[in-house]
């Protein structure tokens, strides 16, 4: 769950980290009012969940409220990388002495959260890490000891920062770590963290990402920020097909038949489970097949859930056939999936033998499943045919991309 910049600012504020003057507006008039209140040069920034907004013209500067209004109007109508802005952030264009970077992420190898701090802010931190490693301070902090400031201090001091800068920066980085832990973030960064002419520090731009697993216990924060349960905030907005897939999965709680992602091919995929789906999607493409979708079945879904997922895939424009494939199952029952996919074909008036290119799900209750498939003349494989061979056969039947 990615937060908009204006939301990240609110999170910083509620945790006591100073942010640059400014406000969020959803229309040009609101932008003008905020600019008038700030009373000086301002920056108008598009609120979109995608990078490259500066390049795309989503960030502009204004000297008067009228100019801010005009810029806001343009930016609000500007689509960036397929995203329409949710609004604009009007910020004071303060005089900045130096830009810093403050971030907290996980280190998956050490399995601990880690600080990332730099005195080269305002640019891409990965670039700094590559070209100026001596300007990056790092340090892990404990997840079970009471939170203490010294870890943050060490990370900052490690790149040679001392004096009042060190003492002013330490609480900011430490508070950032606290909110990272408190709100189930996987990324919390302030970039740039600006030192103003008077020596104080303010966050000018911030970026935060909360993991989905944390959402159930972060309801209060999300409600206060106005983030709805239905907002996925993925890298790409869900399509109607994907939203429908989500509905299929949420109708009953037994098993999974969802995680649908739309692609533009002609071979519909009814595949599972997590790793199996990744393997099979690759396998179809390896033989020149064009998948119409990605999905996952697992955890023993009901017949109707398997059926509804299959119907959704079969009804997708451009889908000629489907391939029903999984890695060896021990929990999900082969016969239940077989029933579901055949029912889906029949209810849509298709011949299962014609529509189902291949069925390759070996494992629990396979004898019963294969019996049903035999009855309808569907081509199926047991575990002696590999996932890749099954995918290859499916592509042969539908015809590879030319």
């Amino acid at each position: 769950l990615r937060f908009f910049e204006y939301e990240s600012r609110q999170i910083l504020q509620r945790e006591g980290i100073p942010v640059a003057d400014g406000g969020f507006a959803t229309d040009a008039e609101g932008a003008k009012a905020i600019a008038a209140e700030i009373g000086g040069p301002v920056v108008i920034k598009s609120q979109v969940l995608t990078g490259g907004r500066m390049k795309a013209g989503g960030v502009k500067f204004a000297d008067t409220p009228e100019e801010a209004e005009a810029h806001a109007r343009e930016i609000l109508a500007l689509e960036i990388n397929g995203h329409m802005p949710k609004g604009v952030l009007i910020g004071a264009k303060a005089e900045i002495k130096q830009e810093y970077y403050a971030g907290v992420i996980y280190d998956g190898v050490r399995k601990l959260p880690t600080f990332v701090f730099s005195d080269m802010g305002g640019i891409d931190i990965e670039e700094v890490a590559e070209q100026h490693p001596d300007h990056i301070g790092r340090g892990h902090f404990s997840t079970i000891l009471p939170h203490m400031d010294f870890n943050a201090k060490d990370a900052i001091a490690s790149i040679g920062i001392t004096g009042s800068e060190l003492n002013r920066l330490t609480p900011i980085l430490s508070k950032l770590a606290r909110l990272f832990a408190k709100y189930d973030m996987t990324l919390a960064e302030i970039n740039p963290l600006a030192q103003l002419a008077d020596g104080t520090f303010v966050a000018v731009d911030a970026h935060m990402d909360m993991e989905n697993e944390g959402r159930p216990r972060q309801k209060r924060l999300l409600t206060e920020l106005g983030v709805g349960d239905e907002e996925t905030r993925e890298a790409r907005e869900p399509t109607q097909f994907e939203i429908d897939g989500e509905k299929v999965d949420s109708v009953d709680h037994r098993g999974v038949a969802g995680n649908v992602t739309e692609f533009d091919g002609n071979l519909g995929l009814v595949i599972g489970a997590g790793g199996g789906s990744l393997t099979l999607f690759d396998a179809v493409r390896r033989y020149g097949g064009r998948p119409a979708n990605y999905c996952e079945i697992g955890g023993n879904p009901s017949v109707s859930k398997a059926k509804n997922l299959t119907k959704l895939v079969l009804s997708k424009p451009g889908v000629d056939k489907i391939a029903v494939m999984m890695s060896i199952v021990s929990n999900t029952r082969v016969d239940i999936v077989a029933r579901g996919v055949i029912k889906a074909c029949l209810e849509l008036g298709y011949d299962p033998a014609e529509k189902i290119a291949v069925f390759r799900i070996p494992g629990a209750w396979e004898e019963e499943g294969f019996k049903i498939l035999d009855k309808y003349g569907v081509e199926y494989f047991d575990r002696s045919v590999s996932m890749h061979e099954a995918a290859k056969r499916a592509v042969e039947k539908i015809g590879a991309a030319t």
Partner: protein
Amino acid sequence: MNALIDQDTTFIVQGITGREAVNLTRECLDYGSKIVGGVTPGRKGREVHGVPVFDSVAQLCKELGTVPDGSVVTVPPAFTKDAVFEAIEAGVKLIVIVTERIPRFDVAQMVELANLRGARIIGPNCLGIIRPGVAKMGGIGGPAKDAQKAYQPGSVGVMSRSGGMTTEISSTLTAAGLGVSIACSIGGDAIIGSTYAELMPMFEADEQTEAIVIYTEPGGRMEAELARYVTENDSKLPIVAFMAGRFMDEMPGMSFGHAGTIVEGKADTAAEKIKRLNDAGITVAEEIGEIPDLVKEKIAAKAEV
């Protein structure tokens, strides 16, 4: 602990009265595993397939007069951290966490405490460990008769970020006559208790194991960690890897399959990982079906040296 599990390993099931846990208990008992007790708060005095249920791990240890070697934790995500802390503080040294969708911070906390106490965590979001023909700890392989079909004792150690693919790959190795020494479903989350590199010494110490097969995915740095381990330690075990989810390289920022697959930087991509593995002498198979021959070649090449 060198072998993870053997015929003498005793373990408990936390959350034993849940539907999935009842099945898992049945499967493990049928397979020959030694489940000495279970825990569900408020259910003391019950039995699950003959296994006595207690209110807490400490109570179980006191009444049975022993600390079990391991625990399989299968409680809802909101309660997992407490259950794992409870097991660790009672002195349990091997904890298999089946539960998925646990917040990452909680996982980091569990792993940090385990490290302090000298305990090992497998998972979360995993199916557990199996030593074919001997014992299994977790839902891995399913019912005993299904597990027997897919897992025959043999010479190859398997580690996989996908539970289902652990069985698919093991079944392929079994069908090819190689068999499996120990298979471990390590979990699909971004932070897991035991990574490939961390489990390598255990496989190296295992007399039965002659080669390793890993199943891997985009996201995270644990393949780079394995590559470094193999290079630095001159590991005696040849490794064959299978990389799924190559298509994800074209879709940065999206997660498929498992929570841990999200690509957060260039080093997380399938292409980059394949390169690193290759550089460390780890062969990356293009198809599952190629794995047995690649393993045989590697074992033969090792024998010639």
